[in-house]
């Protein structure tokens, strides 16, 4: 390490090479530690708050780790006393979880299927308007959702799709499609054509080629794209907010968490809100951790624009 910056460390080094190197390393590690802790802090604080009893929430000296951890906040959220339906009955957490999972899973399944067909067309065929189509996909995913929601609200009102999970499924399918097609296309294009040709020479028809050769090889890509579609639909807020209004029993999880925070009366019950937020967030983060490696390679491929 011969650069001026590397010699900056405070202690004068006897052997500049190794000592300077060590000091530089220590500084870098310190910087890394600070970045990681600052980055993790909000999430850790959410979890810690979720386990705090009310007395500790507003104490004069906040502790990073709850002194008397309690599950009361979670019980409060799961029993559903925070959000009630029109006749003031509590709605348990499971209702929102079920709504969210139902909407998300159906939307992901449909959009993955449609995207796979489109991706094969874009990866395996040359046709007019192919580049135009790709650019259209890029543009479409940049349209602001809070703008389109006005027209969709008016359309869905006349189609009786407001206050229903079907409307949300349709919208989530559509808005997941551009990214999904875009990502799947590069996965499908990376399958060597020779494999399919070899299968065809061995007498396999196109349908067999698809199921036996292309499909198994695209499956990892399908998993990765489904993950992104899943996270988009699971987290989506604007459309749920607009379409579901105050129809609390149909709320999805993000709407539930926001409603909980925005509409709590008589002082904000942050313990319960953080418990709700924890229950909503942790599955996503766990998912992210599990698929970390695949996610990183997806990012590197430059395929993620959302």
């Amino acid at each position, binding site marked *: 390490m011969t650069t001026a910056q590397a010699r900056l460390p405070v202690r004068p080094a006897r052997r500049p090479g190794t000592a300077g190197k060590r000091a530089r390393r220590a500084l870098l590690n310190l910087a890394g530690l600070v970045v990681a802790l600052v980055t993790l802090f909000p999430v850790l604080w959410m979890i810690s708050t979720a386990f705090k009893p009310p007395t500790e929430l507003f104490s004069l000296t906040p502790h990073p780790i709850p002194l008397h951890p309690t599950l009361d906040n979670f019980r409060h959220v799961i029993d559903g006393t925070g959000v009630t339906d029109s006749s003031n009955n509590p709605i348990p957490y499971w209702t929102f979880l079920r709504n969210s999972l139902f909407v998300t899973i159906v939307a992901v399944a449909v959009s993955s299927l449609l995207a796979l067909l489109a991706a094969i067309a874009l990866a395996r065929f040359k046709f007019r308007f192919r580049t135009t189509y790709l650019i259209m996909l890029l543009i479409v995913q940049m349209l602001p959702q809070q703008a389109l929601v006005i*027209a969709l609200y008016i359309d869905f009102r006349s189609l009786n799709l407001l206050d229903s999970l079907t409307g949300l499924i349709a*919208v989530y399918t*559509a808005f997941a499609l551009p990214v999904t097609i875009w990502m799947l296309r590069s996965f499908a294009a990376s399958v060597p054509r020779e494999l399919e040709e070899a299968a065809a020479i061995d007498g396999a028809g196109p349908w067999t080629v698809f199921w036996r050769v292309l499909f198994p090889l695209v499956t990892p890509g399908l998993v990765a794209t489904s993950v992104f579609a899943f996270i988009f639909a699971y987290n989506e807020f604007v459309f749920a907010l607009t379409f579901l209004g105050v129809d609390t029993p149909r709320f999805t999880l993000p709407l539930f968490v926001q409603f909980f925070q925005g509409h709590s009366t008589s002082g904000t019950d942050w313990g319960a809100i953080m418990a709700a937020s924890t229950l909503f967030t942790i599955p996503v983060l766990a998912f992210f951790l599990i698929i970390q490696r695949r996610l990183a390679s997806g990012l590197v491929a430059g395929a993620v624009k959302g």
Partner: protein
Amino acid sequence: MVKTESRRPGNSSPAGAVTGRTRGRRPPSSGPRPTGLTARQRAAIWVRRHHLAPYLLLIPATAVIAWLILWPAAQIGLFSFQNYGLMQIIGAQPTQWIGLGNYSQILHDPEFWLSLRITVLFSLVVVPLTLTVGTLVGLLLARLGRKMATFVSTSALLAWGTPAVSASVIFAWLTDPDGGIVDWSLSKLPSWLGGGPHWAEFSWQNSALPAYTVLTVLLVWMGFPFIAVTVLAGLRTIPAELHEAARIDGAGPWRSFWTVTFPLLRPVFMVLLMLSIIWDFGVFTQAFVITAAPGNRDEFNLGLYEYFKAFTQPPAYGMASAIAFILTLILLIITVGYVRASVKQGEVR
């Protein structure tokens, strides 16, 4: 060109799939029109002869996108020239074309100019900040040992993966005047660092500047991991010899970045810049949770201004559409830059 493509044996067109194993191998347009085939087989042959397979495969996805994204986008344009409001949506009165009425009304509305100014200023702060922080962390990741790099990138991944609603609610709690950790820490800071007891119970939501400060930190926190990981991936593509040569020539890290790293990664930075502008200009969910819960009109950005024109009583869908149209147009202009940067990077192939 097109013909040879779809006649290749490895072609996985569903049309061929319908015809089955034996006919899949038959050259599609050889000989006279075959007779004695079922309707399905004839349709399949027709598809192959006219090279329709890719179009058929694209139909379902395109139909959904056209119905739920493209058509609404066109409708926004149409509504913006109509007096679409409460009477029109319940069908009590027909819609009327009012020309540029909505637009002239908006352009004379000081709230529009305020929200536009907030949106632009906010992007001008957040975009460079996110890019800088993200790039610095990316450069740091490239220099860290393996274990530490994994630790840092995992925590960044967690910040990136936190849903927008959760992140906003968490930041609302962190900056809550009543028990939030931010106010507590600031009140404990020595006064020469800008701290002091006046920070206790400071309300971050009640006026635009504090609210958008919180929003800035929130968006940088959520946005930098993507930048960092992308920059890191870009750094891995630069041969080590280049940096070594720069160092031997006496360039420090600063010069080495601006003379070697940045020029080589310029296309990557262009894409990241465009994406950041688009995201921060159109930010909605976080702004909704952080600023709109108290419903302060002087804290609206363009998206919130438009949304509340449409969805508070009395609804003014026509006017909201005009604002939405302006917002969309601005974003489209930036998107054109983004598409060009992507094409340059060779992503549209």
